[in-house]
């Protein structure tokens, strides 16, 4: 799962125009090498070493799998600079570490330290500051005032004492008290504690002495020595909850079944985290990941969608007529390349233009008819919103579909594929990588459309640059998505060893890398507020950016002055 970061990092230093030559050379290098035509010793940076698979050696495959795992662990370490994923045991460890620290520094018992931390949102520094400012005030506030119990209670074990709750007489060894020294019998104490644990939720962590006028806190020691096993477990779970929820540096993973918490320490404004359950979310606002948008803009966008969704839904409906035969068509695949079942017309789902020669349709075209100005503006504002919302929504659905497809292929088809192509399943990792790249890029693309909606019209240079980057990224993504969705399907459907499979692998891996590079560039540019645009405008005239044509083969944007592609020399 974490591997997708690799693909973004591999060649992100490449300048935009450099991407094509380098990716082409990779493809060339890779196509000459095929796992079925013998195995050489060349290390291919993009593929798992072919040597490991000779004769289906299980040991070698295992070793390879281990390599992959180590690789992921390395990545995890790398990512842990910004945040840590904590399971319950680790949370407990941290809690104990903090309690021990406070206990040592303030020379108090762990019980008292834990009560203090709970009252100060588990912030060690806040506890220390307040304690050293005014220990007496802090003790009074949290209910840790010094013990006032009569000394003869401990000296005389057989003294008869009446419990303050049940009013039964007990010998003093069966009487218990908190820091305040109000005396109750063990039975009443455990009933009191159990009632609180089972009725008050996390409120039981702030349990006080039963005496109405007393504010003395009940610590963990009392709970552990008086509560039932089941209640102790509940209490300790409440402590963990409190540690995560009250602490300013930790948050629960929002996935409903997940028990992990994320401790976040990054400071660079990127809040994307991925839990061990593979839920990705923005740590700051707990919405799904939304790079390159910032949290405020996301909130605004979500609000806008909820208020306008009725309207837009009406316009969009669920079907679109085929532009050729006008039959209604519902989209059931992830990529935007549609083929009408009836007339075999191929078109783009978003702009309904023919797919042949389709490069991108992300650019918003303003209508220039001379109608009533106000009417036009109102219509345009809705049209503009619809344009961006439709693309945002389509990419979102496409992302979810890709995620589901990936799971399905991985769970159901990998085994079949590995048998039919006679290769170990671990070798199919590149397909997983491609799917995850699609998911990640769909997400970025999704939010780039929301970003585009808020991009001011007044700054056409920025807008053009944005649309250029987005368009490039989108068209490579469509290629990748199509490749991993439709072309893969051919191998799944047909079965039997296919020579073409190695070609497919080469193509897919190349596309994965190239797409990753494009998106890295897009996301970075958007996060920088498209600040490169000034130099861009000064260097070349605006027209030059606009008057480019995209090569069908390699997607390179050629200046209109050239008739054949600068990169692959066709047309």
């Amino acid at each position, binding site marked *: 799962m974490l591997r997708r970061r690799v693909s973004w990092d591999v060649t992100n230093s490449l300048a935009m125009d450099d991407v094509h030559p380098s990716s082409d050379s990779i493809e060339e290098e890779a196509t000459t090498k095929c796992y079925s035509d013998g195995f050489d010793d060349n290390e291919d940076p993009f593929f798992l070493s072919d040597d490991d698979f000779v004769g289906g050696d299980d040991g070698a495959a295992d070793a390879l799998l281990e390599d992959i795992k180590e690789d992921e662990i390395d990545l995890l370490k790398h990512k842990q600079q910004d945040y840590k994923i904590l399971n319950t045991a680790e949370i407990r460890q941290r809690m104990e570490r903090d309690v021990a620290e406070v206990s040592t520094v303030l020379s108090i018992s762990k019980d008292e330290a834990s009560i203090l931390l709970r009252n100060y949102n588990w912030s060690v520094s806040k506890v220390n500051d307040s304690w050293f400012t005014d220990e007496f005030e802090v003790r009074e506030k949290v209910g840790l005032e010094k013990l006032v119990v009569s000394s003869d209670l401990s000296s005389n074990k057989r003294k008869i004492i009446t419990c303050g709750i049940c009013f039964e007489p007990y010998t003093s060894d069966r009487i218990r008290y908190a820091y305040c020294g*109000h005396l109750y019998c063990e039975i009443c104490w455990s009933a009191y504690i159990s*009632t609180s644990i089972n009725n008050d939720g996390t409120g039981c962590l702030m349990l006080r002495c039963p005496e109405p006028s007393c504010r003395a806190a009940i610590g963990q020691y009392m709970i552990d020595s008086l509560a039932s096993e089941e209640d102790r477990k509940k209490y300790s779970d409440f402590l963990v909850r409190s540690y995560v929820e009250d602490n300013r540096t930790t948050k629960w993973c929002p996935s409903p079944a997940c028990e992990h918490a994320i401790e976040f320490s990054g400071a660079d404004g990127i809040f994307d985290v991925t839990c061990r359950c593979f839920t990705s979310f923005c740590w700051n606002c707990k919405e799904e990941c939304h790079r390159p948008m910032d949290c405020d803009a996301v909130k605004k966008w979500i609000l806008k969608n909820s208020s306008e969704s009725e309207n837009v839904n009406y316009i969009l409906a669920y079907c679109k007529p085929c532009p050729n035969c006008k039959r209604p068509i519902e989209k059931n695949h992830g990529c935007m390349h549609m083929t009408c079942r009836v007339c075999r017309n191929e078109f783009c789902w978003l702009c309904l233009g023919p797919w042949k020669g389709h490069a991108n349709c992300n650019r918003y075209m303003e209508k220039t008819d001379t109608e009533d100005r106000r009417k036009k503006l109102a219509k345009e504002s809705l049209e503009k919103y619809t344009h961006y919302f439709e693309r945002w929504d389509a990419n979102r659905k496409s992302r979810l579909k890709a995620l589901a497809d990936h799971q399905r292929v991985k769970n159901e088809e990998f085994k079949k594929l590995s048998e039919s192509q006679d290769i170990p399943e671990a070798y199919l990792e590149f397909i997983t990588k491609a799917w995850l790249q699609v998911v990640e890029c769909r997400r970025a693309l999704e939010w780039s459309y929301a970003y585009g909606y808020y991009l001011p019209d007044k700054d056409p240079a920025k807008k053009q640059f944005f649309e250029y980057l987005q368009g490039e990224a989108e068209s490579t993504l469509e290629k990748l998505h199509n490749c991993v969705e439709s072309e893969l399907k051919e191998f799944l459907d047909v079965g039997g060893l296919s020579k073409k499979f190695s070609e497919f692998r080469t193509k897919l891996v190349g596309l994965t890398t190239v797409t990753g590079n494009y998106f890295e560039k897009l996301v970075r540019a958007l996060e920088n507020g498209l600040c490169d645009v000034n130099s861009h405008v000064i260097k070349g005239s605006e027209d030059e950016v606009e008057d480019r044509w995209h090569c069908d083969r390699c997607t390179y944007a050629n200046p209109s002055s050239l008739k054949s592609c600068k990169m692959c020399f066709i047309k």
Partner: protein
Amino acid sequence: MQASRARLFKEYKEVQREKVADPDIQLVCDDSNIFKWTALIKGPSETPFEGGVFQLVFSVPEQYPLQPPQVRFLTKIFHPNVHFKTGEICLDILKNAWSPAWTLQSVCRAIIALMAHPEPDSPLNCDSGNLLRSGDIRGYQSMARMYTRLAASPMKG
């Protein structure tokens, strides 16, 4: 014996002993059911309830004293924190601030204190609360006194 029953039995004995000690409170247990109690309390002096005798009914839950008893006025009373029709009482110690160290006797004392110090900001009787909140002390007092006369005054002679 059930913990609640044992505790109520203790309270019963305590009440018998203390009867003389607190002349303002007269707690009586139902003859056949130790979970049903009634109390007669005297309206505190220097309040519009002075001179009145108010009857409370207690319904004690099985989980007592871990859960608070349910108490309501049987006698009609004009007080911001008592429901005019049902006699339900809005008092923190009967809800979330309950502690098992409270007894029926001490609950009665708390209710007497509430009669002397109403909390008009969380009213069950809005009319009464509004009079106090708008500063019409005289209006509140005369209404409360009237109901004390009408409903809570024992026949003389």
